[in-house]
C-alpha cells in the first residue's frame, strides 16, 4: 500500500500579489508624489500672494485707512509676523488636519469649504457630464461621414462655441432663457435639499456656460482623431476586412483607440475648468469655491486661499490618477504591467 501524501498547498498571500499589481503600484506612487506637489503649490501660492501689493488689513480697511489703522489691524490678524513664520504655522496646522480660521471672517476653514465645494463640484460635474454626453455622439456622427452635413454643422457650431468666451456665453444664455423666455433663473442657487428639479434649474445655465465650449472642443478633438484612425490605421482595415459594419468599426475599434486622447485632454482640462468656474460663479451668484477663492484673493486671506489651492491640487492629482487608471481599463497591456 502506497500512501501518498499530498504536497502542502502553498500559502496564499494576498499582500505580495497586490504589491506586484502595477495598478496598485501606480496608485501608491501617485499618492506619494502628491505630497511634494501639495507642498510646492501651497508654498508657491503663498509666495505669489505675498508679492501682490497690500495685505488683508489694507484690503479690508480700504483707501481711506490711515497707516495707524492698517497697523492696528495687521497686529490683530497676526500679519506683523514674517511671511515664512506665517506659512510654517499654517503648514503645521494643515498637516494635523487643521486648516486654520479665515483671517477675514474668523470662520474655521473646515466649516467654510465643504458647502462651497459641493456647489463647485456639482457645477463641474454637470458641465463635464453634459459636454461629454453630447460631444461623443456628435463626434461619432461627424466622423462617420467626414464633410457630411452633420460634420459641417458640428464644425460650424464648434467654431462658434470655441470663439465665444464663457462669460459672454453666460450673459447671452441668461438673456435668452431667463430674461427672454423666463424658463430658468438668472442667478442664485438652490441646494439639493430643496428638491432635484429646484437644484437643477439653478445649475443648468451655469453648467451650460461652461459645458458648451467644452462640448465644442471635445467634439472637434474626438472627431479629428476618429477620422485619422478610420483613414490610416491597419487595425481598421483588418476590422473592415473581417466584414464588420462601418458603425461597429467606428464605435468598437476606432472610438476605443481615440478615447485615450480624449481622456488625456479631459484630465488636463479639469484644472482649467475649476479656474473657469470663478467667473461663472460670480455671474450667476453661485456660492461656490471659485467665488470664495476670488473673494479671498481680493482680501488677501491667505489661509482660505491656501486651503482652496490644496483642494484644487488634490483634484488635479486625483484626476490624473483616474486618467491613468482608465488607461489600464482600456488597455490590458497596461493593466498587466507589460510595455
Amino acid at each position: 500500500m502506497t500512501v501518498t501524501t499530498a504536497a502542502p498547498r502553498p500559502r496564499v498571500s494576498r499582500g505580495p500579489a497586490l504589491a506586484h499589481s502595477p495598478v496598485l503600484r501606480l496608485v501608491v506612487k501617485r499618492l506619494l508624489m502628491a505630497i511634494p506637489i501639495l507642498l510646492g503649490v501651497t508654498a508657491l501660492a503663498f509666495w505669489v500672494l505675498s508679492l501682490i501689493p497690500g495685505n488683508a488689513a489694507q484690503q479690508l480697511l480700504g483707501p481711506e485707512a490711515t497707516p495707524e489703522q492698517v497697523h492696528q489691524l495687521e497686529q490683530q490678524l497676526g500679519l506683523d509676523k514674517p511671511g515664512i513664520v506665517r506659512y510654517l504655522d499654517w503648514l503645521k496646522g494643515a498637516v494635523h488636519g487643521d486648516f486654520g480660521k479665515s483671517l477675514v471672517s474668523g470662520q474655521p476653514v473646515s466649516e467654510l469649504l465643504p458647502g462651497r465645494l459641493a456647489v463647485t463640484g456639482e457645477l463641474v460635474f454637470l458641465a463635464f457630464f453634459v459636454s461629454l454626453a453630447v460631444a461623443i455622439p456628435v463626434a461619432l456622427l461627424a466622423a462617420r461621414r467626414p464633410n457630411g452635413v452633420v460634420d459641417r454643422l458640428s464644425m460650424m457650431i464648434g467654431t462658434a462655441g470655441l470663439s465665444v468666451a464663457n462669460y459672454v456665453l453666460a450673459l447671452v444664455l441668461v438673456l435668452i432663457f431667463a430674461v427672454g423666455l423666463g424658463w430658468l433663473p438668472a442667478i442664485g442657487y438652490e441646494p439639493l435639499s430643496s428638491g432635484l428639479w429646484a437644484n437643477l434649474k439653478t445649475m443648468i445655465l451655469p453648467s451650460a456656460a461652461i459645458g458648451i465650449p467644452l462640448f465644442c472642443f471635445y467634439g472637434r478633438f474626438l472627431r479629428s482623431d476618429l477620422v485619422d484612425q478610420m483613414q490610416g490605421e491597419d487595425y481598421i482595415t483588418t476590422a473592415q476586412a473581417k466584414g464588420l459594419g462601418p458603425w461597429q468599426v467606428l464605435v468598437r475599434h476606432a472610438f476605443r483607440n481615440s478615447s485615450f486622447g480624449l481622456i488625456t485632454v479631459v484630465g488636463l482640462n479639469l484644472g482649467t475648468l475649476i479656474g473657469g468656474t470663478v467667473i461663472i460663479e460670480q455671474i450667476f451668484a453661485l456660492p461656490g469655491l471659485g467665488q470664495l477663492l476670488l473673494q479671498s484673493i481680493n482680501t488677501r486671506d491667505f489661509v482660505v486661499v491656501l486651503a482652496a489651492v490644496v483642494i484644487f491640487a488634490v483634484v488635479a492629482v486625483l484626476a490624473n490618477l483616474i486618467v491613468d487608471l482608465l488607461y489600464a481599463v482600456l488597455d490590458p497591456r497596461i493593466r498587466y504591467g507589460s510595455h
Partner: protein
Amino acid sequence: MRQRIISQRICMALLLATSLVLTACGGDSGSGSSGNSSGKPVKGGSLTVLEDTAFAGSWPTGLDPATNTTGGANISMEQAIYGGLFLLRADDDGSNAKVEGNQAESGTLSDDGLTLTVKLRDGIKFSDGTPLDAQAVVDNWNRDLQAPCTCKPTWQLAPDGIKVVDPLTVSVTFTQPNAAVLASFPASNVNWIVSPTALQQMGEDAFKIKPVGAGPFIVQDNQLSSTLTLTRNPDYFKEGLPYLDKLTFQSIGGDQPAYQALQAGQAQAYEGMNTTPLIEQAQSNGNLTVTIQPATSPYNIQLNTKIAPFNDEKAREAIYRATDFDAIAKGLFKDKYPVSQSFTAPGGLFYPLEVKDYPEFDLDKAKQLVQELGGLTVNLGTISNYVAKQIITALQTQWEKAGIKVTTNDLQLSALVQQFQSGQWQAMLQTAGAWDPAAGVGVSFRYSSKSPFSGIADPDLDTLLAQAAGTTDMDKRKDLYTQANQLIADKRYSPFGLAFAPTNLAVQGVAGPGLTTQIPAILVNTGVIWDEVYRSNG
C-alpha cells in the same frame, strides 16, 4: 435634412434677434427718478436686493458694527438689522436733507460744539427682548471706537467722555468742537446698536454672522459676501413697520448680471449701478424705476504740489485750463451728472459754494502755459473702476491737445495707497467731500497737510478746514468752506469736475425712501430706509 438645418438657423436667428432686442439701448437722460413708483404702501411680501460684489455686496468680516471693516459699504444691511439711532432723510427730490432721530428721540450738540447729548426713545427692545437703553449705547460706543474700520468716528474724547446720564440719555464730551458729529452718524458704526446681551451670550465670532439688533428685520441666514436673508422683526418699535415680511440681500458680480437678474424677475432692486449705458437702458425700460441719487462728492484732480511739476503754480493752471469737464459730462455721461467747481455737489449740505474767477477751460491759455513751461509731462492715476477709467482717458485726450504729455494708470486699491504713501505721485483723479464736508473722512482727507492722501501742504487751508469742522453756526461754516474753496481755486490746487452719484433700480411695484426717492449719498451709496420700503404686488 436641409429643411431641418434651415429651421435650426431660423431658430438661432430668432434667439439672437430676441437677445438684440432685449439689449437694445434707449435714451432718456437727466437725473432724478424715472419710471413710476408704486402707489400706497402695502404690508407683506418679500424683496431681493442685489448688491455689487465689488462694494456693498461684500461683507467678509460679518455685520457686527464693531468688527465689520467694510461698514461704510454695508450701510443698507446695517440699517435693516439695527435700524439706526439717526437717519438721513430728505424730500422725495432729495432737497431739505437732514439728519433726524430714529431710535434716538433727539441729538443735541452744545453751542461750543464740545458736548453731544443723545436722548433715546422709550420702550425700544432688541429682538432678543432686552432693552435698547443708555447703557447699551455706551457699551456699543466703547466697542465701536476700538473698531478697525474707517467707518468709526474720529471723536477726540475727553477723559471718561462717554457717560450714561439717565436710563435713556447718553452724553459725549469732546476735547475739540465737533460740528459735524450728528451729520456723521448715519454713515458711522456708532449709529448701529447691537444687543450687548446677545453679543455676550453668542460670542463675537458667532455674533458677527447672526447679529442681533433692534432694527426692522432679524437675521435668518447670513452667507458672508453672498446672501443675507432677513425676516420681519415682529416687535419693531415703529407701529405697522416694516412693510416687508422678508428682505434678502444678494451679492452679484457687477452691473450687467444685476440688470439681467432684475429683468428676469430674480430680484426686485439693485443699489449703486454706475455703468452709464445700462442706466440708459434701464431708463427706457418701462418696468423699472431708475433713481439717480443727488451727488455729494465730485471728482477732483489732485495735484501733488510737493514735487515737480505741480510745485509750480503755472503747471497747475495749465491743467485747469486744459480740462473741460463739461465736455466729459456731456460726451460720456449725457449730462446725467452735474459739474462742480467745489468740493461739494447739489446733494451736499453746503452746496453751492460760490467761487470767484474759477480758472475755467481755455485751450489757448493752456497751450501758452505749457509753452512757457517748456513742456509738461504728467502721470495721471486713478482707482480702477468703470467711471474713473473713462474720465482719465478723456482727460488724457484733452490734455494732449494742449501739448501736455500724459501717461495714465488705473490702479488697484493697494497700489493706489502705495502711490500716495510714497509721495511720488503727480496727479490723481479722486472724489472729494461728503454730504457734510467734515463728516466721515471728509474733505480734509484730500486737502489737509496731515493727510497721507493729500498733495497739499498749506497752513491757511488747514486752518480754514479745521475751523469749519469746529463751528456749530451753519452760516459761519458755509462761509469758512467758501473761503477754503476759493483758496483752492486761487492757488490752482485741484480742479473739480463731474459730481457722479450712484443709481438705484427697482422694479415696478417696489418703492421706498432712498430706493425710489432721492436722498443724498452719505458716503458712496444712499442710505435706504428699509423699514419703509414696500411692494404693492408682493
